[in-house]
């Protein structure tokens, strides 16, 4: 009988995660030529810090995409979760609700709000069997609507110290937010590679009926993924709030496009069951480096968008050529 060629198949599958590596190398070379500052530790650290919120949302979205679902509302959680938590804590004079909960609760509250939104999404999608795309599109509007409504569109300038701390402290030379990203990505990579729960996401995304037949508690896992996704987005919002020192009514708005771009150019499939967290991370890096180089080079503002889009397109083509496989 047969004996399908072993080596190439295995290697190719792993390779899929690395198709962006040549793009990253290329960007590093271009950046180095464009501006001597580019390759300094300081600048690269900045890139990492600037992308840390995006990275966490990409992590959340990658988990959800691998499970074969979809969540657009994450971008609204990035703004709304910290805003609501802060409003619960700060006095009414600083645009708070007037509840003035203890400041120590601020961070847990942020995460709780994110988890709650994720749980609600999960409820509608898993239990009520509504389309994930359209539910989370509606929730994108609803969650941002709550943010706008409660804050009356005002920015929050008074933010508890604990939150600012996250955005401004460094630890062993790297900003705390970068450590968050490193640890959470490492954790996710390990869980998705070496734990049954992680493999269950691939099984569910790959063939939900087969996963159910294999005894995976599909509904419970999916619901958990939505809750985790909401929590990670809230954490991203927390880091972003710390970095920016305040919460504008626009925080997170429009971010979801970049989130999908990073995940998908990083090899995570929109069809579910395919891609890795490491791949998604390379996607984030590409986006971060492109933005940084464009800033450093100082392209005329009106042409920046075009060049940005073109670089993404070219990255995509390079990764397609390197990967050798049709994308989906």
């Amino acid at each position, binding site marked *: 009988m047969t004996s399908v060629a072993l080596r190439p198949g295995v290697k190719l599958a792993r390779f899929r995660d690395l198709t962006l590596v040549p793009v990253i190398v290329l960007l590093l070379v271009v950046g180095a030529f464009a*501006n001597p*500052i580019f390759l*300094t530790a*300081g*600048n690269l650290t*900045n890139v990492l*810090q*600037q992308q840390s*919120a995006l990275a966490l949302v990409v992590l959340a979205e990658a988990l959800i995409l691998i499970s074969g679902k979809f969540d657009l509302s994450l971008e609204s959680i990035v703004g709304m979760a910290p805003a609501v938590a802060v409003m619960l804590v700060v006095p009414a*004079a600083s645009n708070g609700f007037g509840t003035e909960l203890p400041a120590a609760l601020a961070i847990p509250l942020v995460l709780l709000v994110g988890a709650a939104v994720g749980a609600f999404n999960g409820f509608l999608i898993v239990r009520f069997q509504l389309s994930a795309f359209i539910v989370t599109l509606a929730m994108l509007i609803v969650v941002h609507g709550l943010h*706008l409504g409660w804050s*009356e*569109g*005002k*920015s929050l*300038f008074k933010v508890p110290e604990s939150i*600012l701390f996250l*955005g*401004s402290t460094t630890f062993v030379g790297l900003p705390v937010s970068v450590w968050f990203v490193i640890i959470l990505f490492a954790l996710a990579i390990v869980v998705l590679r070496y734990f049954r729960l992680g493999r269950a996401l691939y099984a569910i995304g790959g063939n939900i009926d087969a996963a159910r037949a294999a005894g995976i508690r599909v509904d419970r896992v999916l619901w958990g993924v939505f809750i985790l996704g909401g929590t990670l987005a809230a954490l991203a919002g927390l880091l*972003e709030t710390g*970095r*920016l*020192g*305040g919460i*504008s*009514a*626009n*925080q997170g708005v*429009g971010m979801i496009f970049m989130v999908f771009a990073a995940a998908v150019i990083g090899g995570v499939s929109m069809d579910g069951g395919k891609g890795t967290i490491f791949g998604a991370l390379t996607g984030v890096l590409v986006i971060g480096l492109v*933005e*940084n180089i464009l*800033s*450093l080079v*100082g392209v005329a*503002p*009106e042409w*920046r968008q075009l060049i940005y889009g073109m670089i993404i397109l070219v990255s995509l083509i390079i990764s397609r050529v390197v990967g050798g496989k049709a994308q989906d």
Partner: protein
Amino acid sequence: GTTNTPAATGGGGGKVGIDHPRADSDFWNSYIKYVPQMAGELKVETLNPTNSQNDVAKLVNNVQTLVGQGARAIVMAPQDTGAIASTLQQLESKQIPVVSVDTRPDTGKVYMVVRADNRAYGTKACEFLGEKLGGKGKVVQLMGALQSVNGRDRAEAFRECMKSKFPGIEVFEEPTEWDGGKAASMLQTRLEAHPDIKGIYMHAGGVHLAPTLQVLKAKSLLVAPEDPKHVFVVSNDGIPQEFDAIRKGEIDATVSQPADLYAKYALFYAKAAMEGKTFQPGPTDHGSTIIQLPNGLEDQLPAPLVTKENVDDKNLWGNTVG
């Protein structure tokens, strides 16, 4: 002087239709809050205000709806000045006067434009920074969105003023698209490459203030104006948080864009229009000047530069809101 011709056709009855441009920025939220207050003071009847979310297509829809509800005058703030032309034409044909707040439509008849001069903001910021820096060094301009005419006006005026009056100053332009996150990243990157940057002009305090302070703080550049490491920051809008920052010495100045006067005179002129009054170019009784435009008149309201010296002035709108 302003000449008030008596109402041609009896009384100024009728409701004013108002469209708000957006509800997600601090400046416009203050404006939105002033509108009903001023309407009460001026005894102007208004329809339920609509909101066009910074989208000119929505603005056009909203105006149609307002007219459908019987608006006799329209107050709008088209953040885009080109694509409002045919709406203005239609309103003119229906004899509905239009007061445009904050922006000046390129074509199409307007009864009155109520705005401060955005080019003047840029020039004021340039002159302030130029003097503080002694005509040399590097400054960053955190711009709004290219698509916004106000952002463009401020950017161009700042750029041109720097070029002509302070050629020794190098200007870096960052298109932040009114986004705080982008502003922080761009400023951080720029400071990494040019640690000797000494001045920042922010187009919108509402979105740029907190991130800028946070970046400066992380770089330990948030120091008193006397310190040689101090980075001079000029903001734009005049919201209370900017005044706080000025008092603390974190930033040095802001251009106070008068949200209260915008609301007050928008309604004032809308009422006047319904009453059939007309105005002439020239100085007004409220410290401003009316100028003639090809398609109407413009009342250029004063937009003072606020510094440590005058930051406690009770007349500044930023000192009258919470």
